[in-house]
């Protein structure tokens, strides 16, 4: 009886302790104004230290205010944010995702505020080129992408580029200062790397566990075979746009060929994209093709002098292109008690001099087009130049998973099947177009 009693008391005591703690905790919260921000920009470590530091600065200049930045993985955040905002006890300011899966829902259900008055107040219209604002525009019914008021604002420019291990290039007899300027030359370089590298070292260290790995990698190949504007039109659901064009099918065939030729690591489906960057940073593979938001960990692993950064070069059209755009859009919850304070925080983390300096120090490119990378950091210069090359050629392909609520899963599955040789390029193009068409009907 004693032991049992003890066990029961154990449980009861814990519960009471917990309840008491809860009470004290709740009491303490009441005296300060707390804003909660959600973000997924903590990849390796990405903007995490920047946002944390900037929030501390903000707290200092706003006594009585506490900023609580919560980091979640991209898939977790995007999967939970609509319900979190709808509950009324969710974040005050949060990243969303451009496109029909997330932002369209948030707009349609009136969960976020249009930013029109804050754009006027803080003169945010100077941050980007007018056409760039398209990715944040929605008509209030959530159906038309690219038109209507602006609902979000992004902190950094983003681009998918190749980070290449300089030493391995030299070992394969390739001059790192004279990389191919055409797509055809690029493919020849890959073949040469495959021939010269040891058999168990991949040419491209890839991570596709969450599904966006190959969505990203594909962009550079795609850009060599299609007009970037046609891709953007398709993402924006301009009537009549198609995914299954001849160029796209050829490009998918090239990606499949890369897999067949053994350019990728065996375990790409079991590794996250950011984890793959970490593995590349530790010396595996000749290159990693992914988002420039992971540039810090690569620099830390290989050393700034040992890295060459470049987008995949253009095809016959001559236009530099890659998957990219701006980072995740920040939104202000429609149910927050402190929208103005939230907007002020956004203004601080996006436009202030201190913010831009901190972003550059983490190898992140501020979205403000007037931001200049500080001289003296050659690596940062490369990353910045890679972004400019594509942005200036109007080659940013955006992110194709924006095109429908289920497009992310469709692309993830189709890419995995394509690369495993279980799906043909034409088959994949059709499956993707079918998803787009089915959703497109609901918009008309």
């Amino acid at each position, binding site marked *: 009886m004693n032991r049992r009693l003890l066990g029961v008391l154990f449980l009861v005591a814990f519960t009471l302790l917990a309840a008491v703690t809860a009470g004290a905790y709740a009491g303490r919260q009441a005296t300060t104004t707390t804003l909660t921000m959600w973000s997924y920009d903590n990849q390796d470590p990405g903007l995490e230290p920047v946002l944390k530091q900037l929030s501390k600065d903000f707290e200092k200049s706003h006594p009585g205010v506490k900023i609580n930045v919560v980091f979640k993985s991209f898939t977790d955040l995007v999967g939970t944010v609509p319900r979190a905002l709808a509950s009324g*006890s969710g974040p005050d300011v949060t990243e969303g995702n451009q496109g029909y899966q997330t932002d369209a829902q948030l707009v349609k259900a009136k969960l976020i505020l249009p930013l029109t008055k804050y754009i006027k107040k803080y003169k945010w219209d100077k941050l980007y080129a007018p056409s760039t604002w398209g990715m944040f525009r929605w008509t209030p019914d959530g159906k038309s992408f690219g038109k209507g008021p602006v609902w979000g604002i992004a902190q950094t420019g983003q681009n998918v580029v190749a980070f290449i291990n300089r030493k391995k290039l030299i070992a394969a007899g390739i001059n790192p200062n004279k990389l191919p300027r055409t797509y055809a030359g690029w493919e020849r370089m890959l073949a040469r790397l495959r021939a010269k590298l040891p058999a168990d070292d991949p040419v491209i260290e890839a991570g596709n566990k969450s599904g966006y790995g190959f969505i990203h990698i594909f962009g550079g190949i795609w850009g060599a075979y299609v007009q970037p504007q046609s891709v953007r039109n398709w993402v924006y659901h301009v009537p009549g746009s198609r995914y299954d064009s001849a160029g796209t099918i050829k490009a998918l065939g090239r990606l499949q060929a890369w897999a067949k030729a053994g350019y990728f690591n065996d375990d790409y489906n079991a590794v996250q994209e950011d984890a793959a960057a970490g593995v590349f940073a530790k010396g595996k593979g000749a290159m990693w093709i992914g988002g420039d938001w992971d540039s810090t960990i690569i620099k830390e692993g290989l050393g700034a002098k040992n890295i060459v950064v470049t987008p995949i070069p253009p095809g016959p059209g001559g236009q530099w292109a890659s998957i990219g755009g701006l980072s995740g859009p920040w939104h202000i919850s429609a149910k927050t008690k402190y929208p103005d304070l939230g907007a002020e925080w956004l203004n601080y983390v996006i436009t202030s001099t201190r913010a831009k300096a901190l972003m550059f120090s983490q190898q992140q490119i501020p979205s403000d087009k007037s931001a200049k990378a500080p001289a003296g950091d050659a690596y940062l210069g490369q990353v910045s130049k890679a972004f400019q090359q594509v942005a200036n050629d109007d080659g940013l392909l955006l992110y194709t998973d924006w095109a429908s609520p289920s497009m992310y899963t469709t692309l993830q599955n189709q890419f995995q099947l394509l690369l495993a040789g279980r799906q043909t390029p034409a088959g994949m193009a059709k499956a993707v177009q079918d998803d787009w068409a089915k959703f497109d009907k609901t918009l008309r």
Partner: protein
Amino acid sequence: MTAVRIDRLGTYFILCTFSLLALYPVLSILFLALHRKTDLVSGFAIPTRIDLSSFEAAWTEGHFATGFKSSFIVAGAVTAASAVLSIGTGYAFGTMRFVGDRIVFPIILLGIIFPYEATVIPLYYDFQDVPLLHWNLLNTYWALILPQIGQSVAFGTFWMRAFFRSTPRSLIEAARIDGASSFGVLWRVLLPQAMPAVLTMSVLVFTYTWNEFLLALVLVSGTESHQTAPLGLSFFAGASRATDPTKVAAAAVLVALPILLVYLFLQRHFVRGMLAGALKE
């Protein structure tokens, strides 16, 4: 003699092998957790020194103080409430006959094989806007406590009914003859004897409630302040596994620890209770 010896050796071999298999996954994350982020861990990862830094990091960065608090409150409340309710229903079904009992009991039994996943959708929308009352109970403890009481009553009723049916009728009759009301019989005669069964049921309900994930994912993921520990672990793993597997392993160990401690402390009652329950049916 040798045949018996081999026979016994074979038996112990089987038992030891499966015991190792049962323990190994738990041991492997424990070993992983005892490393530092900077160690390049691979394979069996038996730690050469004990390093608790990953546990510290996991506890603070994963906000498990909040997670544990939420989990204790929810599991504690569900356990207490369902124990009380199940004692009642078990008592009624186990010692009395009443109109409709033959229909209602199987309906309750259905709850043991119930597909709870199929109920999360309406639970979400009904908690977001409670019918008639128009409250919003999302991201509160109620959202987790109320449905799980309902879910535990099925198992609890089965359990307590089995126990009450096994008590000798003479005991109950004697008390009734002395003028005890139905409640009196329960409180003074049956309950003291029922404590072991109640305790086992409570520990099992506590465990299942502590481990619940989907309900938390759907109903309380909007705010960190009410996240349960398993939900916190899922988010923490999603955000950090790529960069620091030792931290995530430490978090996993932390989440499993309370139940493991209770189990080790009370394991005799766990299994004895399970055997008793199964025997009755």
